[in-house]
């Protein structure tokens, strides 16, 4: 230790305006936490790859999904046809890629529709509370009792198979979970002091809902949406599998699975690849959704 003659002089420019750092600097941001979750990052990576391949793949390919080549029918996987061919000689790899487009599109669009309906319904129920909330939630409780898949099948029978109709059917069937989540969030946030403060400041209901309540509910909303996508993908696959989904020659994964099942004994690869595609995509979204749920858990924040 080095004691100088001026060591005991007063310390000049001693600032007391120190920028207070709070616990946020100690607990990591959600993105950091997500990065630590290896499964979630694997899921995210997989999704990105699938999306890129789905968009770019069919463009780059010389063959299209509907090109038939009866000479090459039912060939197992080879260097020409990475996933083999189906009974009409169509290249399965391209068809799976094309199916990815359809399945992902359905997954995302249907989830967005569910999101919109769910947020509006849940938002109104949670915000107004009281009798409005009770009635609206009773309706949801009743709807929950109906098996959703059954309901979707009935819708498709009425609307007739087709891509747009799938969007509609799935979009208006799966919003129940989102509505409950949003309502729960809003109910719990409504009594937070910053919402009370906004009220005492004279904020209108709209302002409170859109500036205070909804932005702070984004966490659970994003998680629910991420987990809803695989549900929609699976629902579409199921519908197509039973013949109520998209029509041939369009190649959604469900259609491919359906075609593959008929030749399961002789050419198992025709079912294997579409099934693998469905499973991998669903798992990827599920891992990502779980990781998001852990990363955004508000209890970890302070």
């Amino acid at each position, binding site marked *: 230790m080095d004691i100088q003659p001026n060591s005991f002089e007063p310390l000049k420019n001693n600032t007391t*305006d120190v*920028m*207070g*750092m*709070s*616990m*946020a*600097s100690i607990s990591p941001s959600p993105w950091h936490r997500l990065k630590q979750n290896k499964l979630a990052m694997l899921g995210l990576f997989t999704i990105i790859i699938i999306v890129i391949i789905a968009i770019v793949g069919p463009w780059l390919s010389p063959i299209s999904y509907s090109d038939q080549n009866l000479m090459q029918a039912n060939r197992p996987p080879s260097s020409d046809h990475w996933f083999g061919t189906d009974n009409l000689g169509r290249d399965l790899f391209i068809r799976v890629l094309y199916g990815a487009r359809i399945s992902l599109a359905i997954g995302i669009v249907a989830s967005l529709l569910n999101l919109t309906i769910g947020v509006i319904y849940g938002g109104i129920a949670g915000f107004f509370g009281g009798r409005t909330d009770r009635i609206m939630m009773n309706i949801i409780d009743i709807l929950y009792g109906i098996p959703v898949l059954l309901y979707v099948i009935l819708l498709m029978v009425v609307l007739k198979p087709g891509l747009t109709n799938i969007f509609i059917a799935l979009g208006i069937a799966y919003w129940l979970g989102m509505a409950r989540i949003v309502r729960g969030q809003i109910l719990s946030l409504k009594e*937070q*002091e*910053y919402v*009370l*403060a*906004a*009220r*005492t*400041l*004279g*904020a*209108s209901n709209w*302002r409170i809902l859109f*500036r*205070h309540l909804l*932005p*702070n509910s984004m966490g659970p909303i994003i998680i629910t949406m991420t987990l809803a996508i695989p549900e929609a993908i699976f629902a579409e696959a199921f519908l197509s599998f039973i013949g109520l989904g998209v029509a041939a020659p369009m190649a959604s994964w469900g259609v491919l699975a359906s075609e593959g099942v008929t030749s399961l004994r002789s050419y198992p690869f025709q079912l294997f690849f579409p099934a693998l595609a469905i499973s991998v995509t669903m798992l990827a979204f599920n891992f990502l959704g779980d990781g998001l749920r852990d990363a955004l858990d508000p209890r970890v924040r*302070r």
Partner: protein
Amino acid sequence: MKQPLLNVQNLKKYFPAGTDIFGRTTSYLKAVDDISFSIAKGETLGLVGESGCGKSTTGRTIIQLYKPTAGNILFNGKNIITHADKNLCRNMQMIFQDPYASLNPRMTVSDIIGEPLDIHKLTSGHERTERICELLELVGLNKKYSNRFPHEFSGGQRQRIGIARALAVNPSLIICDEPISALDVSIQAQIVNLLETLQQELGLTYLFIAHDLAMVKHISNRVAVMYLGKIVELAPANELYTNPQHPYTKALLSAIPIPDPAKTAMNQKTKLIGDVPSPINPPSGCRFYTRCAYAKPICADQEPLLSDIGAGHLAACHLTT
């Protein structure tokens, strides 16, 4: 006598507590049960009591977060219950307890402080930014932090932001609902000093709700003590602490530990028997009689009224009348 800025008359706030099978309310939680007081302009009235006494509910009912069950609230002579006043939020504001929950975590500091300005369309553009900087300086925060988010600040700083937000609309009355309970001891003194300075500079009137009696004594001109929804004693601050009349006040004061080891032996504690009764079914007569060491038969029958015992000192106790 000049008209008080705030005049609360026979205020009641009941919450539904139990319902029968038809959904009709059968019992009520009587959080605030007929209280009256007034606050003069520039004065600080402290409101103390333990948990469940109704002090927070009183504050929130006055600022209209809750609708009163009965009674009148007069602000500058006008009854704000019967005459809904759109400008009320510009006259009366609130500071909240939890610095971690009273600021929207997704808004920047300047958005938070600017919100009241936007809601009431008070300023815009360049003027708005100036006003926000002015407010930040007023509460002792550096204006270069106006683009930060609440989680980047400490508890004391967040409380300052909350104060700046309340001041944005130039209110005359500020209800402080336990504004320092969640802060560290040394920061509590900072915030209390800030509130006192602002009161002098801006001519503010405070209703200071807290459970820390020592702090309340320090900042208030007069203090009201609440128990189970009622005001049991109201007196000038010094008078209340040197000459308490109500047995509950005496018990409360004697329970406060004195930060001086030499004085602890001398501190005779008034014993309080039993637990606080339920506010859904408060005792008949004087609410405090079940725990009062001096209870007389009349205490169980008749509720004592808050009466003047001289020098602006009010107490609700049969023993003083």
